[in-house]
């Protein structure tokens, strides 16, 4: 591949004034819409010690502005249950919802043997028809659960309510209880109708609450392993979790359960036996960690395995928690073994990518974490934002107390959690915890995206189709990261686009090998000659060779 071409010479820093850009983005909107969007478009500042600018997030999507957001059902079925292979997930509703969530999320799973259960390749639906809407669908739901049981004899069945279900008053929880009774297996439902909340995020919450209430803690068996952790918010897209398992395994750290990638019902049931919860995607799951700490006494920390340095840092952080010399040594060995290759590739790629610019608008934490990888190869993130995040994901966890609960959030159940009478066991004494904090160890805390971004960059929540197109026109970034719906719009503008939901069937991008994969992938995208070939020669120089013209 060509090492250098016109595109790889570092572009001059965008000289645009972000304030004006922001105005430009809002200019065309109707007043009401502009007022609403104005809150969600922020020019980043890093005030000395002071507070970051406040950003509007986790608020309603404006009808008609073309959002990239999905619904609560998508968040609920996708996030926790989707990647879990041994639960039969039945969508109760018309066929579409189940159909669209069928195999499209690329959560990889690897059953130990051919006899192990794997239902992830299947789509189960009650395919509600008009009469079910009119006369109620519980009867059909019951029958469907029975048919699923007869066919597969699974250890658990879960039910997902779609929009009409709530409206017609089908009680999925009642049916679940009834069938659980009848079949003697775990059956539970989720009221994740698509209209609830303001984005997928509500669905994550409902799913997490459900799994916490119905599964976590069902199996007290304490597994082998000296250093036991849970990985929260890791969904094994493109095999990320496999890479992390490889690394942690080399370090001698056992993963009791992953919420939820390559995950199983039994691992969830057993997850409360871990001694530390480590959180990847804070957005989708931090409250599970909270609940587990309250109920079982498991402390939690934020880690980040996106980026070579970040991976090393996170491993050290885990080791530091266990305060075990042997573990610390082992972790250093692993880092020493893995980093050279990472750095070799990084330098090679950096030589070709240095100074290029990126935009990231995706997810609830990825748009933040992946900036690290770009930074490692010398690329600058000039604008970013999330699709379904909350303020803390932008500004940091310290803003949580200040958040006011609006109507949409209020209707997402908050579980009342108390220490488990028998099983609450603080993993560390208050003294130990204090001592660690003393040393600057940060528990249950995370920074947001904004502190890590340069001043003057634009941070935009739930960016609209219109806004992203304006941004691209004005900044002409070298790469744009988002999801499948944006992919081809961006590329039609001649800008390479990388999906950070599905990885464009690439990956893994987490951990050491993941970082290497990502460096190379970005190198491919921003340095390929093809983007310079989009214009045909007769448009480059349209003049005609007069001498040849008709006489």
């Amino acid at each position, binding site marked *: 591949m060509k090492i250098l071409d016109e595109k790889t010479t570092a572009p001059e820093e965008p000289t645009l004034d972000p304030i004006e850009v922001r105005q430009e983005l809002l200019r065309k909107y109707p007043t009401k819409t502009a007022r609403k969007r104005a809150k969600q478009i922020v020019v980043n500042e890093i005030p000395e010690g002071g507070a970051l600018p406040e950003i509007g997030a986790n608020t*309603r999507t404006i009808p008609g*502005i073309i959002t990239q957001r999905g619904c609560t059902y998508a968040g609920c079925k996708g996030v926790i249950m989707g990647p879990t292979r041994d639960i039969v997930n039945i969508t109760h509703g018309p066929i579409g919802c189940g159909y669209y969530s069928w195999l499209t999320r690329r959560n990889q799973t690897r059953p130990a043997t051919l006899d192990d259960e794997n239902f992830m390749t299947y789509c189960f639906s009650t395919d509600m028809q008009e009469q079910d809407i009119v006369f109620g669908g519980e009867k059909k739901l019951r029958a469907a659960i029975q048919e699923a049981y007869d066919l597969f004899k699974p250890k658990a069945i879960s039910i997902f309510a779609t929009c009409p279900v709530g409206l017609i008053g089908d009680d999925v929880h009642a049916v679940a209880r009834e069938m659980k009774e009848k079949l003697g297996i775990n059956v539970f439902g989720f009221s994740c109708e*698509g209209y609830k909340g303001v984005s997928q995020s509500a669905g994550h919450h409902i799913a997490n609450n459900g799994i916490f209430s119905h599964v976590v803690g069902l199996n007290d068996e304490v597994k082998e392993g000296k250093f036991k952790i849970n990985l929260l918010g890791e969904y094994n897209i493109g095999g990320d979790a496999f890479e992390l398992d490889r690394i942690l395994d080399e370090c001698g750290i056992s993963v009791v359960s992953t919420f939820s990638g390559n995950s199983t019902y039994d691992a969830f049931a057993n997850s409360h036996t871990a001694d530390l919860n480590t959180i990847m995607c804070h957005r989708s799951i931090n409250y599970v960690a909270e609940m587990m700490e309250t109920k079982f006494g498991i402390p939690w920390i934020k880690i980040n395995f996106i980026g070579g340095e970040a991976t090393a840092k996170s491993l050290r952080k885990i080791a530091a928690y266990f305060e075990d010399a042997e573990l610390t040594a082992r972790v250093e060995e692993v880092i020493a073994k893995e980093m050279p290759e990472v750095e070799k590739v990084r330098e090679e790629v950096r030589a070709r990518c240095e100074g290029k610019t990126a935009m990231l608008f995706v997810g609830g934490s990825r748009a933040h974490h992946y900036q690290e990888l770009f930074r490692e190869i010398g690329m600058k993130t000039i604008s970013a934002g999330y699709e379904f995040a909350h303020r803390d994901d932008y500004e940091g966890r310290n803003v949580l107390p200040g958040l006011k609960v609006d109507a949409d959030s209020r209707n997402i159940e908050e579980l009342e959690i108390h220490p488990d009478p028998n099983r609450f066991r603080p993993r560390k004494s208050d003294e130990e915890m204090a001592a660690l904090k003393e040393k600057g160890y940060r528990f249950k805390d995370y920074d947001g995206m904004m502190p890590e971004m340069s001043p003057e960059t634009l941070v935009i929540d739930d960016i609209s189709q219109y806004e992203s197109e304006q941004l691209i026109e004005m900044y002409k970034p070298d790469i744009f990261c988002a999801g499948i*719906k944006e992919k081809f719009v961006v590329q*039609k503008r001649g800008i390479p686009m990388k999906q950070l939901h599905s990885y464009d069937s690439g990956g893994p991008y987490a951990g050491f090998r993941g970082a290497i994969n990502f460096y190379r992938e970005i190198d491919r995208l921003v340095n390929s000659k093809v983007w310079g070939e989009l214009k045909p020669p007769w448009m480059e120089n349209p003049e005609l060779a007069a001498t040849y013209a008709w006489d």
Partner: protein
Amino acid sequence: MLLRHTPKEINKRTALTINPAKTCQPIGAMYAALGIHGCLPHSHGSQGCCAYHRSALTRHYKEPVMAATSSFTEGSSVFGGQANLLQAIDNIFTVYEPDIIAVHTTCLSETIGDDIPQIARKAQADGKIPEGKYVIHVNTPSYVGSHVTGFANMTKAMVDYFAESNGGKLKQINLIPGYVEPSDMEEIKRIADVMGLRSVMFPDTSGILNGPQTGKYEMFPKGGVTVDALRSVGDSMATIGLGGLASGPAVRALDTKCGVRCEVLDLPIGFKATDRFVDTMRKMMGVNVPDAITTDRGKLMDIITDMHQYFYGKKVALTGDPDQLIALTEFLVSIDMQPVHIVTGTSSKGFVDRIREITASVPVPVNVDAPGDMFLLHQRIKNEPVDLLIGNTYMKYIARDEDIPLVRFGFPIVDRIGHSYFPSVGYRGGMRLLEKILDAILDRQDRDAPEESFELVM
């Protein structure tokens, strides 16, 4: 095994659908609406529907798919979505400036019972619909029919909203292509054009969902049927609707509304159905069939006679939509292949009888499941193995587990390209289909042949 839990033994299911061979109405309506020039489809319901439909269409076409949503909240589902739709209409016309907003409903708004025309009138009254712009709508409850129904309904809505007859007869023919690829629509127009006919095609997604990569993005590209063209269809000399399920309703509506002479034909897949299409145009419009078309047909027949030995007697399992399956099955039977398992998730009147009639000459039992799902199809295959699978990308899981070659056809195809650029309709489409079938069969023969019978010439 990827589908390790699928048992050979078939037990009838009445409530649980597994691995569906259909999806819901709104996506079909969205696809059809994209076939109007300058139109932004709008999904009146939760934003998830719109996100899902856009993603599904995008994966299939690898093209931008623009559509808006009313983003229902819990509140709107209680008090109705009028406010959302009004605000959406205002935002859309202000920000994206389409000529038309084509609203389709969802299970949510249908269950609530929102009255779209009334809301549109309100928007009109509030001056939210600019001069010369339109808001059209169609009811597409997800719990009725399938994506094909949604496509058919939106197509019919084009007639309901725009078709008018001003007495005069225009020397043009209306072509309603049915639920096919942009490349197919292009090819159908090309055939009419080669026959010297002026045609109005609706919907027409060619140029929109198979657009070029030019480094410039246009939200509303050149393609699509224009409002003026839609207005004129009432005065056309004739209408041909392809695919009874997808095009029938629009054809009948146009006949009733403007009394345009019409025929509903099968999708022109394979030489027989294409013959009927060409010959019907010839007779309806009183033109001659030019040599170019006769030659294309002859090339298709050439492949059939040259390679007949590889088609003959091969067993095929196929899934798709009724209109596609009728034409495809006829094509396979006409070249002496044996379609033995036929599954669609969309039930439609007369479908099974039609397939029975087409496969009457097939010397082995033929299973037709309508409605059925891919889980059942897989079980059928386990009970009666086949040489070839024809269907969408989801079939690849069966193909791998059962080690049977797959020819990708229908919706969605998300793991290969070509379907949006090269047609499967018409004689040329038939040639392409046969090439794909032959590649699949011959690659398998090359793979499995013992060394002594590995063939140089095939």
